[in-house]
């Protein structure tokens, strides 16, 4: 078992390094893309600030408080996509159709780790960094106590969000393995989910909120830790008592995603001839 894990992950960092060496060849382009990704997040944040300023906060939340959600959601999405971008339906579908995935399956390691490690897209670092900076600035200006616990909660929120994004895209990849042609429906849960998570969950209708708490823990993973940081409470069903559940929900979702991936592999029909 330990051996299996070592052989799956073991070469992961090596593969990432190899991929990055490929990147360094045209580092200017990649720097530009990374900057572009960061700029996009900043633009969205500015848009939100203008909107919030006009309505003097939303649902009783101040601009800084909402931006804290916003920053964490983007940092988590950036981190998740940094890992899982190669699983996005168009990219992964291409990998299947041109036969590279068949090759991956002849290697003695986890195909999931392989696919992820050989196609890291460093531009997402831009989204992650911009989101993290926005979150930190928002934390300081929100007036909340900047304690080690608050920082730990920020990390928990970011990592939970990232894991959820990876899990969503893993499920998407499993579906792509079955259909070969990629479909974009799951973007509703990754990019759409991150956009939702950027706003206080209480503003959403109950049913929608329930989906993003219980079905796909993309909302809850950002919102609940932030409630604790701000010393606030949320609406019934998505309140601060859920904190202990956040890791459970996220990890359960990851297990479901792993199961979907395995089911996809057993139904995989190959690239054709």
């Amino acid at each position, binding site marked *: 078992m330990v051996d299996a894990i070592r052989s799956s992950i073991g070469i992961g960092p*090596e593969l990432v390094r190899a991929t990055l060496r490929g990147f360094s060849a045209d580092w200017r382009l990649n720097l530009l893309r990374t900057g572009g990704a960061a700029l996009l997040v900043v633009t969205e944040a500015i848009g939100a600030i203008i909107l919030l300023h006009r309505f003097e906060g939303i649902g009783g939340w101040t601009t800084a408080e909402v931006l804290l959600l916003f920053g964490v959601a983007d940092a988590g999405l950036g981190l998740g996509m940094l890992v899982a971008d190669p699983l996005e339906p168009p990219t992964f579908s291409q990998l299947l159709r041109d036969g590279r995935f068949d090759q991956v399956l*002849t290697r003695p390691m986890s195909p999931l780790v392989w696919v992820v490690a050989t196609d890291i897209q460093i531009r997402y670092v831009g989204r992650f960094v911009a989101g993290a900076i926005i979150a930190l600035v928002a934390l300081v200006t929100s007036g909340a106590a900047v304690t080690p616990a608050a920082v730990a909660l920020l990390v928990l929120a970011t990592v939970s969000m990232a894991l959820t994004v990876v899990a969503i895209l893993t499920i998407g990849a499993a579906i792509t393995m079955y259909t070969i042609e990629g479909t974009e429906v799951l973007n509703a849960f990754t990019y759409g989910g991150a956009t939702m998570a950027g706003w206080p969950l209480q503003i959403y209708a109950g049913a929608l909120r329930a989906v993003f708490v219980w079905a796909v823990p993309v909302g809850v993973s950002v919102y609940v830790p932030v409630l604790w940081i701000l010393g606030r409470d949320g609406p019934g069903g998505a309140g601060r008592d859920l904190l202990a559940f956040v890791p459970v929900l996220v990890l359960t979702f990851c297990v479901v995603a792993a199961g979907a991936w395995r089911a996809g592999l057993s139904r995989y029909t190959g690239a054709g001839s």
Partner: protein
Amino acid sequence: MIRVEHLTKSFGKRSAALEAVHDISFAIEAGDFVGYAGPNGAGKSTTVKMLTGVLVPTSGTATVCGLVPWKDRRRLNQRTGVVFGQRTQLWWDLPVSDSFDLVHRLYRTSPADHRRDVTTLVDTLGLAPFLERPVRALSLGQRMRAELAAAVLPRPEVLFLDEPTIGLDVEAKAAVRDFLAARNREEGTTIVLTTHDTDDIVRLCRRLLIIDHGRIISDGTVDEVRGRFTDERRLVVDLVRDQPLAVPGATVERSEGHRRWLTFSSRDVAAPEMVARVLRAVEVRDLSLEPPDLEDVIRRIYRGETGGTGPSEVR
């Protein structure tokens, strides 16, 4: 080493399923060199993919090195090597030597063995001139040689090669064949090679499996298969003068300048008698008697002719 029992793979929905491989069974001993031939779409790649754990079969079983490929894929992949002719196992943007290094880490080979193997392979496959070049900048022949080196670096017990010589020029083909023959002879590596190049089979394989429409239609040693149409002979005659040639019992298959290709059945006319008839009919500068060409035999097997029944006949 390899056991295949009633292996079937169909693609698509149950109602409109295409049986790419239909109920095939065979066994391959350790150290054997087996050709797996068949026309395009016969099911060769699908078989290789099932035996390497890429695809899960619809029904039937198989073991390779005692493991069920699709159940124990990772453990098996540690002990087998695969080369798909039209695709690359190497890192496209990295130098060949970096790919070797990643293979070493991936298969966790001992550093000393790895270094020794790389040195030997660079030498035998002539990789030195392009060892530091990125894979995308290699010619097909160079890439295939690098590909073979990467495939044997983990010292696989079984090597699956899916059309490794496709698209290669004569020289690269020869390099690939020499390497594979040596590997099989010296390391005892079991090799399964799919191809539709009969030259590959004649030069390399001891055993030949022929698959068509997903079914194994012939299984035997290359010599047995060749002997399936033993009564067929070909006589190549070089004439002194360019003149028409008609010999009772033989048909002129081809005619080019002073050269004539005659085919006849040794059951109807014994070979010495046929030679005598030719010599009586025309003035001959040279002649040679050839056994039936494997390519012709395979073509006749595809057409469903069985020839002399022997151990190579399948059901």
